[in-house]
């Protein structure tokens, strides 16, 4: 494998050619925040939180292939505040009531909000009227919390490869649609995986929401980003 040289925030690194900027950063232990991205799934670049700046141009690091000599900016004040904006947009777009959410403590959106020290969003809450969809005997879909990351679209497939979750509508009316018949055929294991893959509390496995008590959940042990750092400055 050929290695190529690049920099992140002025520091020099090397990475394998053909990697995305995000993969190259990760391989060098540099944290770039992500939300829609998921290991093993083709990146879609929907949340835009992993946006970095290269020569004044903004690009999603999850979809952009690294080129030799790139000078990547990521932990800079203005960019971090733009990311904070995006997280805040996601909060005001839906109805996120963390204290009563089954995913609290395991939720990546919540964890990012902590990392970015978001006390109150700069945007007005939209309070959309959204439904809870009782999908199958095992699964329900909480549209209030969906952030359109498309992880379920990419990962939850029927045995013959057909998509069970597919975006419907467009613009702010966009929402995840489900093929009810195919969803009913998911095994217990697949249903659990669907819930675990969802970064927020939108896809829920029924009856197990609070099996692990709050306080002993993923991000109760350590902050998202792993470096236990202070997070970006405000």
């Amino acid at each position, binding site marked *: 494998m050929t290695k190529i040289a690049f920099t992140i925030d002025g520091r020099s690194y090397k990475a394998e050619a053909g990697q995305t900027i995000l993969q190259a950063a990760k391989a060098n232990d540099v944290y770039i925040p992500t939300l829609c991205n998921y290991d093993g799934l083709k*990146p*879609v*670049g*929907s*949340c*835009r*939180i992993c*946006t970095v700046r290269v020569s004044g141009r*903004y690009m*999603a690091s999850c*979809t*952009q*292939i690294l080129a030799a000599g790139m000078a990547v900016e990521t932990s800079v004040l203005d960019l971090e505040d*733009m990311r904070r*904006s*995006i997280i805040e*947009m*996601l909060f*005001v*777009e839906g109805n996120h009531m963390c204290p009563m959410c089954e995913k609290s403590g395991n939720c990546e959106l919540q964890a990012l909000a902590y990392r970015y020290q978001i006390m109150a969003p*700069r*945007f*007005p809450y*939209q309070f959309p009227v959204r439904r809870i969809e009782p999908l199958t005997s095992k699964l329900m879909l909480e549209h209030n919390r969906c*952030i*359109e990351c498309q992880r379920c679209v990419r990962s939850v497939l*029927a045995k*013959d490869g*057909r*998509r*069970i*979750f*597919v*975006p*419907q*509508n*467009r*613009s*702010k*009316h*966009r929402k995840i*649609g*489900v*093929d*009810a*018949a*195919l969803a009913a055929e998911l095994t217990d294991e697949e249903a659990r995986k669907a819930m675990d893959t969802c970064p927020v509390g939108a896809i829920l496995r029924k009856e197990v929401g609070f099996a692990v008590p709050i306080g002993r959940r993923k991000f109760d042990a350590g902050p998202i980003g792993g470096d236990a750092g202070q997070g970006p400055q405000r």
Partner: protein
Amino acid sequence: MEHYQEIISRRPREAADLLEIIRDVQASAGCVPEAAVSEIARHLNLSEADVRGAVTFYHFFSLSPRGRYTVYLNTSITSWMAGRADVARAFEEEAGCLFGETTPDGLIGLFSTSCIGMNDQEPSAIINGTVFTRLTPQKARHLVRAMKTGRDVRDLVAEYGDGANQSDLVRAMVSNNIRRRGPVIFGPFEPGAAVRKVVSCAPEEVIREIKEANLLGRGGAGFPTGLKWEFCRKEKAGSRYVVCNADEGEPGTFKDRIILTELPQLLFEGMVVAGYAIGASEGLLYLRSEYSYLRARLESVLESMRREKLLGPEVAGHPRFRFDISIVSGAGSYVCGEESALLESAEGRRGEPRNRPPFPVEIGYRGRPTTVNNVETLCTAAKVVVHGAPWFRSMGTAKSSGTKLLSVSGDCERPGLYELEFGLSVQELLDIAGARDAFAVQVGGPSGTCVPRQDFRRKIAFEDLPTGGAVIIFGPWRNLFEIVKNFMDFFIEESCGWCTPCRVGNSLLKQKLEKITGGRGTRRDLNDLEAWGKVIRAMSRCGLGQTSPNPILTTLQNFPELYEAAVDPKADFAADFDLGEATLEAARLAGRLPELEGASHD
């Protein structure tokens, strides 16, 4: 009405045919009913969610009935300026339902739609595929009454427009309004000349000529066409595609409609030229749904070109050059004008942009290297092949060669199409179009720039004011904020919703603007407008999102005095809403009125 089961079963079992099947069902049944969704999913081995996802993406498809007569009334700003509000009210009163609804008997549905490419003859509407222009309240009432008697809307077109609009295959009341015929697009052209000339050259020579001509993409982005073709040709592949982007959806643009009406053969010869240059044997014309009324004539021109051997197995007698063109229709979506979204749509899916790279020249239509070019670009390329690069470079400016088609609308005496050399100033254009007292000119449509009077000396050229050709003129009596809100509504409606900033941010921006125009704005709100707009510009995934805050950002920059005048200069902060007003109804119901500072109770 044909039963949809027959429509579906007649089609091949290819997922790429999804949109074509949906289109036929929609046309026959007035919607895609639930049973048809299941049937289509079974036929193509897709999930039902996939089928519903495609139906709900496009404006002209629907899961619920839209009426035996479906009226789509244009919402572009010039439509409002020409009296849309009164026309809409007349439709509603006469039909007995509101916009967004269908009459209880299912006869008439009234819906709004984004710019249909008739900005020079507004208000306009599409009813069951037929275009009606220059509507008045009286005409709207007359149309509804005729629908109630069950007449075919095609018989309601009283008078045909000029030129090929009168052709038996078109029969449209649309006017061309060609005001200025320039030397490139409207210069003399002998049918077949470009095709015959191109096959006598080597493909590399053709690309070199286009590069030397400095032909830049006419859709607005201005990418060098020769370079695009070269990239595409260099890709190692068994087959390549030429795709013509005839999906001009930028509000205010209509130039490609006139090419498609009056010069279809020039366009198709341009596609042959591109195909020969890159080594393709297939071309695809992606025709916006709003222009479907031109499709039969376009098909007939293709047929005659096949008879003339300008298309087919041995194009113009070249033994190794096979090339043919097919037409695929859109279904109502602005973002499909973005080339990768266009390809998604052409392949039968939701028209959402792809992540780039890879670019279409590497992986495009059906995974093959593809050059996607604008209608005007391809016509221009055909002319360059015939007349040569030096001829072309003798026109325009050093950096912007040749001419540009400009779609001019709004407050002027002569709205319509102008072919003019690059480098003319906004003021010169205003003089030619008869706009004496313009106070603002929107160059490049909502995604472009709102130019103020003090900048009218700026030049229309890639190096100064780049544009796909939409020019909308506003007189001093217009309310700039209403214009900006109309443009923001357009982007909010047309966002595919894939990425966060575009999906969420534009609604937030518009709410902020409404706070300001509602008299609750402060300096802080102006700063927010700018900062939030810049987040959307920087963080969005495709060109739609990246340009969507432009109506606000460019007017903030160019008309600061209007914004300054709209806010309270002394206040540091004002809440987004009036607490007293917001709680008034609840307080009344409870039988008490709260004592709130500054609250207005009655």
